[in-house]
């Protein structure tokens, strides 16, 4: 091993230590705050129950829903993956704003990129902890298992997680720019895209103009793919490839935007004094 590669390896170890440090920071916070833990599980479960009963009702009153048992339950669970992923990013960021800790964090060797990676990992953890109990509960209550989607479920999950990450990056970047006064962006970001994400209905239901918008979103391809698996038992590779491609483009764009806004925050001296 050359000296250069040894130095690079040592640098990578330190990077991983710093990411681990941030995971610890969010884990410490979560484990000693039962309201936060309850909040993680509460909404996905309530949503699943609500849509589960609607699904049960429509299964006997709608031929479309009757064709695929649990189509609405799968939709709401996957929608919650997207929402939890985005809000998981944004909440990790907001915790630092609320606790006025940004100054200490960025006087340490932590880099913005490492912080972003740590927020992504926390959002993954929060999503799994939040959505998994609801998915398991759906089995005894409605006799429906989202895991019956098989391997495609993993493809849908990953795409929605990544979409949540780039939405979270945009929201956090904007909060960094405009301060806690823009906190609502963290909560509403994903809902702006809900109507055109074709969560509970096909893209074809939308007016032509909005269909064009919908096809630009990875989420629409995921939910169309989910219905294809449920109704036709086929995994549409084209939709999957488009979702991955769009996600990569948007993730790169969101990361660039976040880093630019972070740089602007440094120019404004906003990292030391954060607030409204």
């Amino acid at each position, binding site marked *: 091993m050359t000296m250069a590669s040894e130095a690079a390896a040592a640098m990578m170890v330190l990077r991983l230590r*710093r990411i681990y440090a941030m995971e610890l920071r969010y884990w*410490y916070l979560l484990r000693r705050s039962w309201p936060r833990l309850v909040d993680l599980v509460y909404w996905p479960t309530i949503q699943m129950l609500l849509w589960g009963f609607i699904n049960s009702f429509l299964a006997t009153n709608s031929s479309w829903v009757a064709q695929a048992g649990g189509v609405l339950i799968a939709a709401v669970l996957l929608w919650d993956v997207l929402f939890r992923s985005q809000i998981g990013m944004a909440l990790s960021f907001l915790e630092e704003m609320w*606790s006025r800790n940004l100054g200490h964090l960025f006087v340490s060797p932590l880099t913005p990129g490492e912080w972003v990676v740590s927020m992504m990992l926390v959002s993954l953890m929060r999503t799994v902890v939040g959505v998994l109990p609801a998915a398991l509960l759906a089995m005894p209550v409605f006799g429906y298992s989202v895991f019956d989607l098989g391997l495609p479920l993993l493809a849908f999950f990953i795409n929605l997680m990544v979409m949540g990450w780039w939405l979270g990056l945009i929201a956090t970047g904007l909060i960094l720019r405009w301060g806690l006064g823009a906190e609502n962006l963290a909560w509403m970001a994903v809902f702006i895209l809900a109507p055109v994400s074709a969560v509970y209905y096909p893209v074809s239901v939308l007016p032509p103009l909005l269909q064009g918008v919908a096809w630009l979103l990875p989420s629409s391809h995921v939910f169309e793919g989910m219905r294809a698996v449920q109704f036709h038992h086929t995994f549409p590779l084209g939709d999957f490839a488009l979702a991955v491609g769009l996600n990569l483009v948007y993730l790169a764009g969101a990361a660039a935007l976040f880093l630019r806004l972070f740089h602007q925050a440094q120019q*404004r001296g906003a*990292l030391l004094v954060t607030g409204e």
Partner: protein
Amino acid sequence: MSHAVIKVDDLTKCFGALVAVDRISFTVPAGSVTGLLGGNGAGKTTTLSMLLGLSLPTSGVIEILGHQMPRERSRILPRLNFSSPYVDLPHRLTVAENLTVYAHLYGLSGIAARIRDLAAELDINRFLTRPTGSLSAGQKSRVALAKALLNRPRVLLLDEPTASLDPDTADWVRTYLERYRDETGATILLASHNMDEVQRLCAQVLVMRSGRVVTRGTPADLLGRYGRDRLEDVFIDIARDRDGNADGTGRADAA
């Protein structure tokens, strides 16, 4: 004379039309304690913020430990630390948890032993398991100091380290800082409004007004130059522009 650990050359920071720091230059010798004085809005915190890499200079050069900030921040930050009453540690985490997180961020080994040693030195053992937000101002100051000393920094930047502390705790903090400097040879730059503190700790004082360094020297120099017995009176003279010799540009004084 000791070499300069901090070198600031022609540093300027503008926020739109406002010039918060206006072409300041100074050096801080290795192993010294330098005080940065000035009234509210004089530019002290903005200067510290640029030294820490939290704020980007509009122009000018900052060199710390032989490396340029912010370009080489990754080489500087592991050997630097900072404390300010205006930047908190997460309130809901216990003191030990906060210190553990920061120990990992600084890539320390032997974390438990380091926290144990610092806790003993700073007398924070009793509240290691308490949420940081539940501590009194004095206790929080000790914890902030513990966080600032975790990585055994060669350079310590302190923003009002004894603000809002009772005289006994403030004295304890000053004594500790003196001891830390003596034992480690660390270089300390502190912004303060407390003239007794500055007189006691600092070998060199830089006084800022309207973003400029308007005068500098040892505390004894300043007292002599302004014909005053107390540094506080010198501060008031400068703040009210009764300096007599400084022209307000900060360039009348030799460094």
